[in-house]
C-alpha cells in the first residue's frame, strides 16, 4: 500500500474516523464527545477545531454554519461533513495502517 497524497496525521485520522462514525456530518463538540467515548482520550475543543480547520483547508472536509440554537446561548453550529476526497484519504490511511499491523496481533493472543 502506497500513499498517493499526504497521509493523515494521528489526530487528523482520529477526527476523520469519529466524523465518519457520526454519519459523515457532525459539529466540533460531537466529534470531541465521540473521540472521548470511543477512545477515552480527552482532547480540547481548541485542538478539535484546529484539526477540523486544517482538514477543511486540505479539502477533506466541508463546513456549513447553521441557524442559532437557544441551548447554545443563541449561537450557531458549524457542521462539518466528509468530502469524497476525505473519504478516500481516510480509506487509504486506514488501509496503510492495517497493512502495517497485519499479522502483528493474531486473534486470541494477548487477550
Amino acid at each position: 500500500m502506497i500513499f498517493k497524497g499526504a497521509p493523515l496525521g494521528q489526530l487528523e485520522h482520529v477526527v476523520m474516523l469519529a466524523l465518519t462514525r457520526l454519519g459523515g456530518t457532525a459539529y466540533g463538540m460531537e466529534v470531541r464527545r465521540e473521540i472521548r467515548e470511543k477512545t477515552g482520550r480527552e482532547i480540547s475543543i481548541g485542538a478539535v477545531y484546529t484539526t477540523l480547520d486544517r482538514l477543511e483547508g486540505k479539502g477533506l472536509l466541508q463546513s456549513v454554519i447553521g441557524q442559532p440554537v437557544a441551548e447554545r446561548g443563541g449561537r450557531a453550529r458549524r457542521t462539518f461533513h466528509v468530502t469524497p476526497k476525505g473519504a478516500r484519504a481516510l480509506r487509504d490511511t486506514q488501509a496503510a495502517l492495517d497493512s502495517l499491523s497485519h499479522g502483528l496481533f493474531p486473534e486470541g493472543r494477548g487477550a
Partner: protein
Amino acid sequence: MKESPPRIGELLVRLVAPGPDRELILGDLLEEFRLRCAEPSGLAAAERWYARQAAASVWPLIWMRCRRGEPGSALICVLFLFAGPFALLCQFWRFALAQVPLRADALALEYQAASAACVLLLALLTGWACCAWSREVGLRPVFLPTALVFSIAWLFLPELIRTLPELGWLVFAGVAPATLCGLLWRRARSLF
C-alpha cells in the same frame, strides 16, 4: 435559571479564538457545559471541565490563528497570556532574591548553607509553578527539568551573580519562559 460558565474561561477563549470561529467554539462549550451541569456531578464539576477546556484550547487556537495568516493577533495573545504572568512572576522572584543571602560577602559556612538552601527552595518553587502552569495549558509537567536547570544555574554562577546581580535575575526570569516555549514548540510539532 440557566447556569453560566466560568467568566475567566470564557474570556480566555474569546481572546484567543479566531474571529469567525469564536462564537461557534463558545457555543459548543456552553452546550456541553449545560449538559454537564445536569449530570449528578453538578455545577462545580462542569465549571472545572470548562476551565480546563478553555486553558487547554489556548495554544491550538493561537496556532489556528497563525495558520490563517493572523500572526500579529496571535503574537498579541501570546504576549498577553504568557508575558504578562511571567512579568508578574519575575517581580516575585526579584523580591524573593532580595531575601537570599547569596550576595552577602561573608564566607562563613552558615551563609553558604543558607544560600544553597534558599536557591534549592526557589528552584523547587519555580519548578512547581512551571509544572502547575504547564498542566493548565495541557502540557506535560516540567517540574524536575526546570528545578534542575535553576539549581545548576545558581550553584555554578555565584561569582558572576555577585559581580552582576542582574544576570542572576535574568537567569531566573529567563529559564521558566524558555522551558515553556520549548515545550510549546515541541507540543506544536507533535500535534501537527
